[in-house]
């Protein structure tokens, strides 16, 4: 599936859109980590919780569960939530 990467993580991917495989959010994040070592820990902490400013959207719906299933032909948008003024 296509995955949109927030600008703060382009140093890992080199650009905004990448391809990743997996049937769940966790599997797609694992594939991203395989392709771009280090990227997962910037988004998910060691207790498997999405970090405070990371948001995931599948076709406009926000996802909270790393075990949420993903369609192979979908688009997962990883967004860095803005905070502050």
């Amino acid at each position, binding site marked *: 599936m296509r995955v949109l990467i927030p600008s703060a993580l382009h140093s890992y991917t080199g650009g905004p859109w990448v391809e990743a495989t997996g049937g769940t959010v966790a599997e797609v994040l694992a594939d991203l980590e395989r392709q771009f070592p280090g990227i997962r820990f910037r988004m998910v902490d*060691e*207790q498997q919780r999405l970090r405070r400013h*990371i948001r995931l959207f599948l076709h406009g719906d926000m996802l909270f569960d790393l075990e949420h299933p993903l369609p192979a032909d979908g688009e997962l948008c990883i967004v860095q939530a803005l905070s502050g003024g």
Partner: protein
Amino acid sequence: MTSEDRAVGTLLVLVATRKGAWIFHGDAERKCWRIDGPHFLGHIIHHLVLDPRDGRTLLAAASTGHLGPTLFRSTDFGRNWQEAARPPAFGPAANGLEARAVDHTFWLAPGHAGEPGVWYAGTSPQGLFRSGDGGVSWAPFSGINDDAQYRQWFGTVQDGTPDGPKLHSIIVDPRDAQHLYFAMSGGGVHESLDGGRSFAPLVEGMEVVAGFDAADVTFHDPHCMRLCPSNPDRLYQQNHCGIYRLDRPGRRWQRIGRNMPAEIGDVGFPLVLHPRDDNTLWVFPMDGSDVWPRTSPGGQPAVYGSRDGGETWQRHGIGLPASQAWWTVKRQAMTGDREAGVGLYFGTTSGELWQSRDEGGQWECMASHLPEIYAVETAYPQA
């Protein structure tokens, strides 16, 4: 990531800031400085340290406002950086205690000279980590991270410093790699005699804020602790409640800050020791009155030094602003070099970098308009 390929200085001043890192390359006279940076623009760099054992391995503890923490490593003085394969991270829940996540790595400490490649790291919230491969991969170290008693001493996030409680001042006895110290804001000073397998508090004589119980380790807030390079049996400490000295094997800290001028007080964060004289130290007092302004007292910044182990203190303010300067210096942001006339360096919360080539006698501004400076270290690179 790359930066300009230029000659490496004789002496480096490593500056970590809220918005990136800079490396100042100095000549032998410490008069000409080439500025290399920013590295990691936009990242919060909490500490930037060169391994004194190989003179080449540079570690940077990094985080950003929106992403998880990490660590970067360079073996060519910052021309190229590689991310740590496994940055410091806590383990899963253990001993019935709540699982924790590292917010940022705060303190980096190279290990013993006889253990090349060993580094220690202190984190926020309080955690102790170790790397055996030069900072590439890190693992929780010692049992303290998941020890019920230590968890109590850590306190809560509300008990710590404004940007999170911290484990800092990790010290390895140069005579014995098994002899370790660390300090926590808050949570006291701790010592291990068995290579970190166990630690015990070392807080006797340290004072706490009025109304709290000094017998409870939780309430102790050491800000910065240093071990004398010329006498590893002597420690100095800048605490939330004063400046202290401890001579081992004694266990009772002596509040030498009582000898500071009363109008200045002995509250502050950084503390620097002379490389060859265990009676000489420097501190940077700040205003810790009423609501804790955390500014230079009266808006008149100065380093204070002692040549007699803290019995008497002298003001070192020549060259610094005489008035209306309301910045201060954080606990990692003041350091010294090893030259015959010891050079002192500090970075301010307003982004200025100051230098003295004569042990505080005269100050010059090396740089201004940097981001808020979090840490300053000196280093002697090896080709």
